[in-house]
Structure formats: C-alpha cells, structure tokens
C-alpha cells in the first residue's frame, strides 16, 4: 500500500532542475527544436501519437523532446494532455480506399491495379550504419516521375479477392461501436472495441504477441494481403450546416492480413482476415495489430484457444503502456508502512515456525496475499483507469 508522505520538496525541485539541465545538454550546441523533431524524427512522433491515441504531430514532438526521447514517457505526457480537451466531434469512418498513397504493397498479388509502390521505406536497406550521416553529408532530394500527374486508383486488394468469394467480406451492419474512453471495457469485448484498444496498444507488446502466433502459439498462417500508407481526409458532420465537411487530412498506416481458412458445413471454406490501422507511418505496429486482431477472433471462428495472443482479456488488459508503466512505476513510491507490516508478519511467521516445526517437518512459508494484490486484480477487471495511468493504491 502506498501511504502519502510529506517532505522532500526541495530535493524534488532540484532533481527536476537537473533533469532539465541534462535534457538541454551541451550548451555549446544549438537546442533541438520541436519542429526539427517533427521533421526529422517523424517515426518516433508517429508512434507517440498512435499510442497516446491523439493525432497532433507538433504536440507529440514536444512530448518526445520533453521526455528526452523516452517514448513511453512521451506517450504518457500526450495522453495526459488529451484529458484536458473537450470532444467537439466524432468523424465519419475514415475512407482508406481514397487514401493519397505514399506506399502500397501486397505480398499476395504481384500485379495489382494501381501498382506496388514502395514509398519511403526501410525495407531493402542493408542495415549497415551510414557513416556519411555521421559526417553530415548532403542528402539529395527525392526523385519524381514527372510523367505521372494523376494518381491511379488503388482499390483495396481484398475487394478483388471478394469477387470470387475466396475471402470473408467485411460488411458494415450499421452498428455503433463502443468507445472505451467513455465506457469501461467489459469482457468479452466485441471486435470494434478490441481494435480500439489494440490501436493505442504498445507496439513492442503487440509485436511480441504477433510474433508468438507465428511461432506456433495460436498459429493462423498469415499473408500481408495489403499494406498502405498515405494521407486520408477527415470528414466530420457539423450541425451548423447539417453537412459533412472535410476538416483536414491525417497520415495513416493500414494492414490487411489474409489468414488461413475458416468454414463450416454451411459456409464454404474461405480466407479469414486480420486488420491493423494506426496513425502516421506505423507499419510494424499495424502488422502486429492485424496478427493479434486475427488471433483474438479464435472463439468467433471456432478455433482452439491455445496461445496467449488468443486470450482477449489477457491481451487487452495489458496492452496500454500508460496503464502498464503507471502500475509498474508506482512500486518506486514509498511503501514504508506496507513493507513494515510485511516485516512484522514475517517475524511472526518465523517465530511460529521455530515454535511448531521440527527439523524434519518444514512448512512452506508462502507469502500470504496482501490487500494490495487483491485490489490490483480487482481494478484490472472492473475499473480500467486508462487516463491517469497511475494507480494509487
């Protein structure tokens, strides 16, 4: 149990001043500008926006700078800022088919309408350190193909498969999705709510879980049917005009995974699907998300649940880095009273042990569960305090 303590104000103030000094670094060098981070470290910015669940590149860059490059801390900062803003609108569903394509590839079809477009990718780089960057070499601008002025339509590839009925269709039944920022998650959760939680989930965690399915813990034989990145316009319905209007555009990454067959006596076998969508350029995240999304459909598709990635409550309750780092970090706070009571308990158990047990009949000293353990499990099940991140217990 964490009990409030007083004192230490001066030490805390000086610690924070030292932190700011460290963050500033060598005063002989120019200070890093937030705009430079947004411009030159944009994949970090995209990850912060995605896991903070707030699209604002400038603020994500600020959070990254303020956190000295600690992504988890930056996510926490931006998520905390999010709680200070009112919600003005809910968008129309984003139309990724109309994306202005920067990158679009398929691992399943070689020749696709609109073509395979690599975009600004790390794929096919040799992963050799580039010492020219250390030397500050000039970088030539990107090349353009000036004979191409109009973007070719890039239909969703899985729609092509649908013509033959080979892949399950994703059809809108008009149902309103639940919003986990408004309603506490309740298990079992439907796929829309699961995707909302996965979209803000920690990339490393989702990557590990997705990887585990590939290694056999809930294997589902995936192919990257289509991966696309680019700009999508955001449309919002406004009451003032009773009209749907465009308010700007955002960068998105999307992954459509195709997985091995499902089917029943009634339905012919067909490919099943997993889906990943994230802010910015977050390809790895969307691939991992699509693998985990598909794994979490095990029950719906009548598959045996044999791997951790298929257990919805386990996967989803531990995906949020703000929750996770908050609860792990609280262990650093003074637990003097709690620990004192454990010391007392341990001394009593040892006294009883000495009194009762003979040398040949040792009893195990299992650690009795404390109030904190129980309350932690309860808070994980019922109340899911996503916004604070710090569980005061």
């Amino acid at each position, binding site marked *: 149990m964490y009990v409030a303590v007083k004192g230490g104000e001066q030490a805390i103030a000086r610690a924070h001043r030292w932190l700011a000094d460290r963050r500033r670094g060598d005063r002989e060098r120019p200070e890093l500008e937030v705009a430079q981070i947004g411009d030159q470290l944009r994949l970090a910015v995209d990850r912060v926006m995605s896991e903070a669940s*707030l699209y604002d590149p400038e603020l994500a860059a600020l959070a990254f700078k303020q956190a000295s490059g600690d992504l988890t801390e930056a996510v926490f900062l931006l998520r905390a800022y999010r709680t200070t803003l009112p919600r003005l609108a809910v968008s129309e569903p984003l139309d990724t088919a109309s994306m202005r394509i920067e990158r679009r590839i398929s691992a399943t079809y070689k020749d696709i309408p609109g073509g395979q477009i690599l975009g600004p990718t790390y794929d096919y780089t040799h992963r050799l350190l580039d010492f020219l960057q250390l030397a500050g070499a000039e970088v030539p601008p990107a090349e*353009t193909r000036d004979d191409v002025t109009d973007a070719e339509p890039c239909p969703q590839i899985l729609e092509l498969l649908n013509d033959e009925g080979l892949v399950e269709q994703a059809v809108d039944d008009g149902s309103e999705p639940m919003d986990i920022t408004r309603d506490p998650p309740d298990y079992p959760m439907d796929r829309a709510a699961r995707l909302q939680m996965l979209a803000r989930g920690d990339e490393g965690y989702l990557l590990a879980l997705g990887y585990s399915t590939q290694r056999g813990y809930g294997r589902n034989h995936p192919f990257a049917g289509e991966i696309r990145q680019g700009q999508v316009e955001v449309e919002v319905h406004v009451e003032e005009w009773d009209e749907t209007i465009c308010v700007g*555009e955002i960068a998105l990454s999307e992954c459509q995974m195709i997985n091995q067959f499902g089917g029943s006596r009634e339905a012919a076998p067909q490919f099943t699907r997993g889906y990943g969508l994230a802010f910015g350029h977050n390809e790895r995240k969307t691939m991992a998300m699509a693998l985990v999304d598909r794994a979490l459909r095990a029950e719906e598709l009548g598959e045996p649940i044999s791997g951790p990635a298929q257990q919805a409550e386990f996967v989803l309750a531990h995906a949020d880095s703000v929750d996770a780092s908050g609860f792990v970090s609280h262990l650093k706070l003074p637990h003097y009273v709690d620990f004192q009571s454990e010391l007392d308990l341990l001394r009593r158990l040892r006294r009883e042990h000495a009194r009762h047990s003979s040398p040949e009949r040792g009893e195990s000293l299992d650690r009795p569960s404390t109030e904190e353990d129980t309350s932690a499990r309860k808070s994980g099940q019922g109340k899911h305090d996503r916004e604070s991140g710090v569980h005061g217990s």
Partner: protein
Amino acid sequence: MTRTSRGDRQRLLALSPRQHIEAHWGALGRLPGHRCLRGPETGMAMLKGRIGATGNAFHLGEMTLTRASVALGDGTVGHGWVRGRDHRHAELIALADAVAQHTAWQEALETRVLAPLADELAARQRRDTATAAATRVDFFTLVRGE
C-alpha cells in the same frame, strides 16, 4: 467563373497551410470588421475507422480540432473548422465563410484567394503523386529449377 460551394471552400482552406492563406488574404484589401461569436476553441474529434476498411466502424483515436464562428458587422455569420490547434487558421476559414455570403466579396475571394490556393494544393498533391510513382516497382517471380 464557377462558384465554390461552402463545403468545398471549407475543405480547400482546411487543407491549405495557414501561411498560404495569409499570403493571399492581403489581396482582398480592406475587409468588413468581424467579431468572434464562438471560439476560436480547440478540442478533439474522435476518429472512426472501419474493420477491414469496409466493415463495421470502430473508434481509432482522437485528433486535435479547432473551430471558430464569427459575425460581420451586419450580422452575417461564418463558421470554420480545421485539424490541429491553430486558432487563426480556424478564424480565417470562418471569416471566409462569412465574407463569401456577400456577392461584393465573393468574387474577390474566389479569384484572389481560393483559386491560387486550389492551384497550390493541386501542385502539392501532384508532386506527392509523382514522388510516390517514382518508387513504383515491378516484381518478377523467378521460376525455380530452370
């Protein structure tokens, strides 16, 4: 000349950087005075995606959104919305909406602000398309055992 619809004008101004709008705004000359009825204020829009791109909607996450409503001296009201936190940007969009309701200003707005912004937006998007097209690839499948 074709008249830009209210929705198209809102879209064009929301997709144009504020600095670009301001660069052309001066060409309108002296505009009628206005006051802010609401905001400019920054909040969020919750963004929805679709499962598998075409299926049921789900909540993806939020983005910052700024809105403004202005009134001209004669009571004409204009509204504007824009992604992000730029108050001036939202105010300019609202002001353009109000001004466009007056025939006297509408044509000047079209020719001196909206038309050049539309050209700039088209040029930016053409350049993006041409850059992406330069990375278009044709994969060859190698036949094994030959």
